[in-house]
């Protein structure tokens, strides 16, 4: 398994760059154009979700890409989460729906003031 880690400031400005990394990696893995686009869209949504949940004190978004022969797993987390920002906030609903629809797995966990989102997509044979 290859692992790529990206650490970026929690700012909307960098989300397009994060998306690029995901599509570049998906392309290297041999996903087809539609799947590459799905992965890029979902990576963007997951970054959006973290940015919306993050406290002003949160500095960095951590994105880990785990690349297997047949699976791309992506883990996104942010250090400090604003307790006021509910994971069920209405603005997040559409975003969640998109990721649930386009990825094979999608898990959101909140623990110790830290939100961690995990998602994965399988390469069809």
């Amino acid at each position: 398994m290859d692992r790529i880690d990206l650490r970026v400031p929690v700012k909307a400005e960098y989300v397009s760059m994060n998306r690029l990394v995901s599509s570049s990696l998906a392309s290297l893995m041999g996903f087809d154009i539609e799947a590459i686009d799905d992965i890029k869209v979902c990576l963007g949504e997951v970054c959006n979700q973290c940015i919306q949940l993050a406290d002003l004190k949160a500095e960095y978004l951590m994105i880990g890409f785990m690349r297997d022969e047949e699976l791309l797993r992506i883990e996104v987390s942010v250090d400090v989460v604003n307790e006021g920002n509910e994971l069920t906030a209405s603005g997040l609903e559409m975003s969640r729906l998109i990721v649930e629809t386009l990825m094979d797995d999608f898990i959101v966990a909140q623990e110790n003031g830290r939100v961690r989102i995990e998602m994965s997509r399988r390469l069809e044979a």
Partner: protein
Amino acid sequence: MNLQIEVRTAEEFIQVVPIGEIDVYSAPAFKEELFTVIQNTKKNLVIDGEKLDYIDSTGLGVLIGGLKRMREKGLSITITGLNPNVHKLFTITALDKPFNIKGA
């Protein structure tokens, strides 16, 4: 920013053309432009989606907000020319129903 916005006034409607990406970074600028157009128009709105390469949930949220305001004025929003990748997001979020979506 990876978004330019053109506004064109036709006889029957007013047209907004987003060029590039509407995402969490560019959505505030898009919202400001769109809502200004909506505030000042008495015509229906057409969004030409042909040069819209990407939209995320933030951008969709702005469109929803725009539609709400247009409906309050008794007006509609039609979206044309969306590429399949962008159209897909309208389908997933069931926004292909409230918006009048036309063309491939």
